[in-house]
């Protein structure tokens, strides 16, 4: 039972991690808590649904419940969500920033934006749940008593791939390094001649892309609904803060730990209490290690 819960937790955690990465990046670089972030998970999931509607989910292959078409749909949806995420900055956050708004104003603006985005999705697709595919998947026994779905394994592998790619970008690409520099010190970055607007644009696009990927695969296991993103928002925040804001490995580790903790919690508690788990974790982290597990205190 416990091993199964941990394994399930790792798969949930992979999705939480992808969501937490973008949140952590914007938290550190834009310097406010973007509560609209989780809506890009939902947006990504529904954009992929639209794409799947056009080309179909594809024939199940390699033991997965879908074919290459869904993967293509996910990439298209994520790219579009990245652009929309940047668009939200242009329309909502940038004008506020330019007028010298306090971080708290941006936080409330993000709350408002989240509500609007979610309800636009409801207007288009309604409150019903959707499925990418009606294929039923059977768990595969990997060790006695522990079953995994091939889809889950695929999601984990894809998450690892995306995180590795992002890590290489942040440590080797000029703009990636500039993102980390901005995260540490905006004023020194400016003095060094970093184009702040370009770094911010890249940050929004990457965070929207990652969130949408998380959203598509959250919708795959097993369904899409308008609250898909907002339901997981607290877990994502906990993961980002747990791992240490601004730290990519931290966001990944935080996501996995939150996923595992939530699934272990279900062994001992009524599922109705599940939303309380991230709160408890968050409180614990803020109390014991406010900079997060892998957080770096800039000197």
């Amino acid at each position: 039972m416990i091993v199964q819960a941990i394994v399930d937790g790792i798969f949930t955690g992979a999705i939480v991690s992808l969501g937490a990465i973008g949140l952590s990046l914007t938290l550190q670089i834009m310097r406010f808590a973007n509560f609209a972030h989780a809506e890009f998970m939902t947006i990504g999931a529904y954009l992929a649904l639209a794409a799947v509607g056009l080309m179909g989910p594809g024939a199940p292959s390699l033991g997965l419940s879908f074919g290459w078409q869904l993967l293509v749909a996910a990439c298209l949806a994520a790219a579009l969500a990245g652009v929309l995420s940047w668009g939200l900055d242009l329309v909502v956050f940038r004008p506020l920033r330019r007028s010298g708004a306090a971080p708290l104003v941006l936080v409330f603006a993000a709350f408002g934006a989240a509500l609007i985005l979610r309800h636009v999705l409801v207007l288009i697709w309604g409150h019903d749940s959707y499925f990418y595919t009606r294929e039923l998947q059977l768990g595969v026994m990997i060790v006695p008593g522990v079953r995994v779905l091939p889809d889950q394994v695929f999601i984990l592998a894809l998450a690892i791939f995306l995180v590795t790619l992002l890590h290489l970008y942040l440590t080797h690409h000029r703009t990636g390094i500039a993102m980390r520099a901005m995260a540490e010190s905006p004023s020194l970055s400016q003095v060094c001649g970093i184009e702040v607007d370009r770094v911010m644009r890249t940050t929004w696009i990457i965070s929207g892309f990652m969130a949408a990927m998380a959203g598509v695969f959250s919708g795959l296991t097993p369904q899409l609904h308008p609250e898909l993103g907002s339901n997981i928002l607290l877990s994502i925040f906990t993961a980002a803060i747990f791992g240490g804001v601004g730290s990519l490995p931290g966001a990944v580790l935080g996501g996995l730990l939150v996923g595992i903790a939530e699934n272990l919690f279900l062994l001992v508690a009524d599922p109705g209490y599940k939303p309380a788990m991230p709160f408890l974790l968050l409180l614990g982290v803020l109390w014991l290690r406010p900079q997060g597990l892998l957080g770096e205190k800039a000197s």
Partner: protein
Amino acid sequence: MSELCAQRSCGGQQVLEVQELVAGYVRGLPIVQGAKLRVDAGELVTIIGPNGAGKSTLMKAIAGLVLIESGQVLLRSGSVLGRTPDQIMQAGVGYVPQTGNVFATLTIHENLRIGGYCLGAELAQRLEQAYAMFPALASKRREKARTLSGGQRQMLAIARALMTQPSVLMLDEPSAGLAPMMVQEVFERLRRLTREGVSVLMVEQNAKGALQYSDRAYILVEGRNRLDGPARGLLDDPAVAAAFLGASRRQVHP
């Protein structure tokens, strides 16, 4: 000469000229209240003065980081008024702030790459030049800047600011928090830079030490020029020594 400068840019020997500058963080509450200064090519110029005299603010104003209410800041390429910090940097002003002057969470190599952010193909060559100039950094290029000692950090901050080959390098208290040996090394390093064609403007609390290496100095009090002249003359002036050099020594070693 000054009339000509006021029109477009500073010319001749000058690389930087500040005229009647009024600047501060909040409009209507200027900290710098009519300061002026000039830096010639190959000069090492120091600004000294008591705490709160506006020395750092003056430097930030030149770098484009605080609000300029009136006055003029001229480079060879023209006025900096209305330009953003990155444009001023690209116009040839290197700036090393007093604190937080390196990216602690980035490696030494990444710090230098960020210093040369706006460079194109010449980046690789400049990186090699920086490592040749600061061999201590070369051996630690993969390490995070926060692992460096105070002196090494200052060297990294200087190397970072030199990546774009500025015509004038500004440093805010480069000796702050350094061991006496390191202070000397930093000053000597800056002196050597001026021989290589980089003009240096620095703010210093360690006035006596800084003046020994400087060509000229300005004494700033309450945002205005109090005295200026050749560094040697100021060092030997008993009135200056009593009012400013003694006081600053007490501030360094409380």
